[in-house]
């Protein structure tokens, strides 16, 4: 228990550092920015309780906000992502449910399941994030394009990270 708490804390710190030190400095085209940090919410165990998940989401978002000078913006998106995670998980659950010894990774759950999980979660998070940031509907389709491009990039980074870090 203590060991896993420690390892998740380290994951948290690493995710935040990679986001603010590296990814926020790479300006690919001036229009898109990947948000890999959301992967922290994705790697948490299946059976984690709401009482940890939602505060953890808030903490993740508000930490990112501190670095990006966007108080509350990322926090709102991560709390939403944390809230929908259990629903998404039960929506895409395999026939025999989840084994509590399993962890949500490609190596344990297979690429098909993992892709569905990541696409839904990242898309929902990015939607809330970008539309809340723009906060108007006049540029609806322009923002949608930004959401989709950044989602693609984030998903790609998550797939690479998961393949490299969470090998069997």
């Amino acid at each position, binding site marked *: 228990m203590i060991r896993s708490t420690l390892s998740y804390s380290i994951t948290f710190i690493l995710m935040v550092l990679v986001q603010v030190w590296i990814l926020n400095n790479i*300006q690919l085209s*001036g229009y898109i*920015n990947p948000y890999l940090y959301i992967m922290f919410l994705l790697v948490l165990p299946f059976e984690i309780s709401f009482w940890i998940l939602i505060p953890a989401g808030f903490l993740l*978002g508000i930490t990112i*906000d501190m670095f990006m*000078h966007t*108080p*509350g913006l990322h926090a*709102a998106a991560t709390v939403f992502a944390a*809230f929908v995670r259990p629903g998404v998980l039960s929506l895409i659950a395999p026939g025999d449910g989840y084994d509590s010894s399993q962890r949500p990774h490609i190596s344990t759950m297979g690429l098909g399941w993992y892709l569905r999980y990541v696409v839904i979660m990242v898309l929902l998070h990015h939607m809330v994030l970008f539309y809340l940031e723009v906060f108007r509907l006049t540029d609806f389709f322009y923002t949608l394009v930004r959401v989709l491009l950044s989602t693609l990039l984030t998903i790609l980074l998550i797939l690479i990270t998961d393949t490299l870090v969470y090998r069997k």
Partner: protein
Amino acid sequence: MKELFLILKRFSHVFLFILFESLALIILFQKNDYHRPLAVNALQRMSYNYYSRVNRLREYFALRETNRQLAEENARLRSLLRSAYRDPGKGFTPMADSGKLRQYEYMHARVVSNSVTSQYNYLTIDKGSDDGVAPDMAVATDRGVVGIVVSVSPHFSLVISLLNRDLKVSGRLQGSREPGTVEWPGRSYKRVVLKDIPHDIRILPGDTVVTSGLSSIFPEKLWIGFVEKYHIEGGSFYSVDVLLANDFRKLQWVFIIRNRLRTEQLQLESASGR
């Protein structure tokens, strides 16, 4: 009572979600202008140090471009030297610069962190309160407006970028006196919009857009960009698309501009009840 408790328990996760989500939204919508205090905490200072280091590397790759800009600026400054002018002859004496009151002071600074992808972009520069920087000083390059200092730590300053939807700057077309508002619509990092220009003014694509000097922050006639196209908006006003003079993605060196008469101006304005 017991039922109420059961309902609470049944929907506890929804309540938990609403609690944290409203907390985030309250923090988000609390800000109503860019002067909200931004805490410069230990974490941020840590990231500034890192940015400084990354930037040293990035500067190396940009040497060619920086050299070109410096050479250009040297040439421009040389052309301003008195030796570049012909003697005006007997009639009038050349203007005595020392007799003039210097209103603006310039200090250079390096950009250590910058963003253009958000709707509310900021940049960090490596001069702070120890160097005499204070909030509300203008930041620009020799190519034009960059932003305004919003908060300072001893060695760094946070600058609200012109690419921030909270920032509005008073601007006009060079050659006309009608001021308009320059703001960023939140799309391309290459363009801003100049609004509220009366429609009886002649505009040509390529015209220079400069600061109006109608604030105590920016000096007059600082470049902003060049007219790309324009259309009539709301009946009698032009909305002008302006191609920015600065490439905000590649900002390296900037000036901080201090208006020495700002306090005096503000005092006078507030004393007369404005």
